[in-house]
């Protein structure tokens, strides 16, 4: 789980480099950075990256889930979709969780179907997780960047 990699323009390059010089394994810092970079590259807005980093450091298994979900979003939606990542805490640190919202220009029926399909990819991964993750939509339009 420490070195999960999703498809990115640099994956192949890193693989090649890995062959020449196997990477020293570590804690989760680099997989957190790579996962955030990959999501950011997918037209995502990350609210308070430092809070997200702290959360992922505390609950490393969520990094893998985030990585899996991002990859699926890439498969199920087109370039008009936007992601919004933040920590929801409802004012209570004990109930905080990581939320990834999908925003699209038009919310037809198929959007929820596709979201539910993606949810099935990660629900089972939450069984053994100590942190929590939610992928859904807030039905807002994508932000103009």
């Amino acid at each position: 789980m420490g070195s999960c990699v999703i498809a990115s323009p640099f994956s192949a390059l890193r693989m090649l480099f890995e062959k020449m010089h196997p990477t020293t394994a570590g804690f989760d810092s680099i997989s957190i950075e790579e996962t955030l970079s990959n999501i950011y590259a997918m037209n995502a807005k990350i609210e308070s990256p430092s809070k997200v980093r702290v959360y992922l450091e505390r609950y490393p298994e969520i990094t893998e889930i985030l990585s899996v979900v991002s990859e699926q979003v890439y498969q199920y939606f087109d370039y008009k979709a936007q992601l919004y990542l933040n920590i929801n805490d409802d004012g209570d640190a004990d109930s905080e969780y990581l939320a990834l919202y999908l925003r699209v220009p038009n919310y037809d029926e198929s959007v929820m179907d596709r979201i539910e399909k993606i949810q099935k990819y990660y629900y089972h991964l939450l069984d053994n997780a100590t942190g929590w993750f939610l992928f859904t939509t807030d039905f807002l339009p994508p932000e103009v960047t």
Partner: protein
Amino acid sequence: MAKYNNPPIIEAVCEIKFGKDTKWDITIPGLIYNEVMSEFPHKEQHAIQEVNVSTKDNAPTKKPMARTQIRTIDLVRFLSEDKKAIIQVGERVLLVSRLTPYQSWADFNNHIKYAFKALSQKVTINSIQRIGLRYINRIEVPKKDTCLDDYFEFRPFLGERLRKPYASFIVGCIFPFNNDRDSCKVELSQAVAESKDVSAFVLDIDYSLSKPQSIDVDQSFEWVDKAHEEIEGIFEGCISRSLRELFDEVK
């Protein structure tokens, strides 16, 4: 690298893999926990994926094909009270990490020695298969007219005829050391910045033993000291005066 008041280190890690001639069983992590629990009281179970990339000829075409093998390694983590110092133990592997705030090399080195000695008391270590020391730095610089040349001596070079600006980049080099016995992989890439006012980069310096079992077990600490010295030199070689000022160099 601790000569800065604001060092950019987000993680320092030392990984030691032991040879197959080191006997191992599943009770060992528990035995080590008994040794370190006073300083590393929190215990967690975790798994990491090790990626092995190799090439092999594709029989019909004789063209080389890349083959990727992913192996899951179960690790037990022991964390300090503040969860910033971590020991991880898996089958014939020991990892010692320090997260932000990085205190000093002396402090981190003590943790490496502490963990290694705790392991040595429970396991007869016969050989070192691989050893690596890695420093991962996340560097943020003001975005206003960010020019990599101002901050980095290790950076991508784009000729005049290439399109600018680029969307993203990653650059890397592998430097040989000690007659190719060791090597150091250096990577600089863009990272997600905290705000729109800054640009962020990850500078990853990974020094390791290239030739398996080419040092004796009792040379491990000496190797780690030397690796740290080389990493410091590379780090200083990668950054410019502007970054030293941002890191607030201790005079």
